[in-house]
């Protein structure tokens, strides 16, 4: 589904992504674990084409096609989407309208179902704007609902658990599992080992490079033993 080969990004002379290789299979949940500043969000931006990021080297292949030069819309139309760590708020755009434009059919009953899947009561939220009146956690769950509505082939979820309370987190994770059961691949970016438990495979990112990859429990343990205790963040040679 997604093959990233020797991906590189240099910004102002600094290597942010440094020869990154990654494979995400069809209907796979692939967790990316990494400390702050290791390049997780940059990787998400490069795959989606957001933030004006374009690789300075390497390839991003989606379903056999190099997508690195495509616009965000073109990538979305091919079935890729991104849920931001801190989603944008849009004054005057209701939750209902936001989910409708994400959804292929825009049916109200379907939209209500996506809200319920992330633990939100439709009557309470459908007519609200996705603006500053929503809490950070509410906005994140709506972002997740809009991804569910899109039925993407590949959903990139950037720290979907941050700002989510312990009651809502299981609902959110269930939403990801449900989306995966319906055939979506998921690139699940996080620094929470708990979240990666739902993944089929996990890779560890350091200094813009994948330094380990494998089964979730083993890789999470490896991350815990090696990265959380490492005094040389972003210096994998140590």
């Amino acid at each position, binding site marked *: 589904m997604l093959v990233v080969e020797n991906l590189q990004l240099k910004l102002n002379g600094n290597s942010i992504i440094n020869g990154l290789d990654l494979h995400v299979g069809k209907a796979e949940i692939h967790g990316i674990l990494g400390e702050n500043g290791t390049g997780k969000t940059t990787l998400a931006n490069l795959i*989606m084409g*957001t*933030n004006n990021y374009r690789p300075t080297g390497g390839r991003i292949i989606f379903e056999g096609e190099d997508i690195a030069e495509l*616009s*965000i*819309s073109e*990538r*979305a*139309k091919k079935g890729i*989407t*991104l849920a*931001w760590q801190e*989603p*944008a*708020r*849009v*004054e*005057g*755009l209701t939750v209902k*309208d936001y989910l409708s*434009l*994400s959804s292929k059919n825009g049916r109200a009953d379907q939209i209500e179902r996506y809200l319920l899947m992330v633990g939100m009561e439709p009557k309470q939220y459908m007519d609200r*704007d996705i*603006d500053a009146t929503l809490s950070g956690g509410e906005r994140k769950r709506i972002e997740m609902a*809009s991804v569910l509505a*899109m039925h993407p082939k590949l959903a990139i979820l950037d720290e979907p658990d941050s700002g989510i309370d312990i009651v809502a987190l299981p609902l959110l994770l269930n939403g990801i599992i449900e989306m995966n059961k319906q055939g979506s691949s998921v690139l699940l970016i996080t620094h929470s080992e708990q979240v990666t438990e739902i993944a089929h495979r996990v890779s560890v990112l350091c200094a813009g490079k994948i330094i380990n990859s494998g089964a979730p429990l083993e890789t999470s343990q490896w991350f815990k033993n090696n990265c959380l205790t490492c005094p040389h963040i972003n210096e994998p040679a140590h």
Partner: protein
Amino acid sequence: MIRYSVEEEYKGIISAYEKAGGDKRALQSKDVAKLVIHENRVLANDGVKGLKINTEETDSGVRVNFTVEKGTKVARPVHLCFGLLPKEGLQEIIMKVDAQDNSEVSVVAHCIFPNAVKVIHKMDADINIGANAKFDYKETHYHGEDGGIEVIPKAKVKVGKGGVWQSTFSLSQGLVGRLDYDFEVFCQEKAVAELVVKVYGRGSDDIKILEKIHLDGRGARGMAKSRLVLSDKARAEVRGETYGNAPYARGHVDCIELVNGTEAVARAIPIVEVTVDTAKVTHEAAIGSIDRKQVETLMARGLDENEAVDVIVRGILKS
């Protein structure tokens, strides 16, 4: 100039009215007060109990006397439809409004110029809101894509003791052309004035907005709010002026202009003046660009960039 029969005119204007978001059923209902004017001809004029609409056709438009009698509370919104279907023409509406003491009315006006290439639409209104009367006026414009139109709405509004004037002017469908909006409100004791303008300027639109509120009575309150989005080579100047001239008057000027692209030009000039030490008038004016992250969020759901910008602009102008 092409002349239309009255029947053709009515059909044409109602069709354009629907396209502009108007509710055709409201114009067909006997229970709803309405006034439909095409060029200088009055095509429909129905009042309801306590509301009188008198008209006089002139060479270039129509004089309208709109009276809400003392104590009358008009249950359903009054619908006004002003339009000009030919490509060229002049329409001058001279309006006198008398909302008498303790009356209440809500007016929805649609101004429709779908084919304008060289059209001038002027409105000159003299509006008197009586003591404790409430008048809510919403005016929405529907223009074509030629931009060959000049819109010049001017109003002087006097709001009596405890009265309320609320107006919203929206122009986001079609090209603006040239807009010279000038509303001035004088508030007596405990009167309230709220002026809202929402405009989406594109092409080479030229927009001038003046919202002026005089808080002349003790405890009077006023807000002048404007939301503009400019693309292409559109230019806009927004002046929001509020004068606190009486004890405990409270006023606020709130102007936000967003510029999309590098060629549009926005200017905001808020003026606040207080002449009494217990009065307070505040202002906020911001000019910025459309948030890139908002655009990218919508693009990541499959919208093209222009569609994404359009959704954001509609949201800004709705709120």
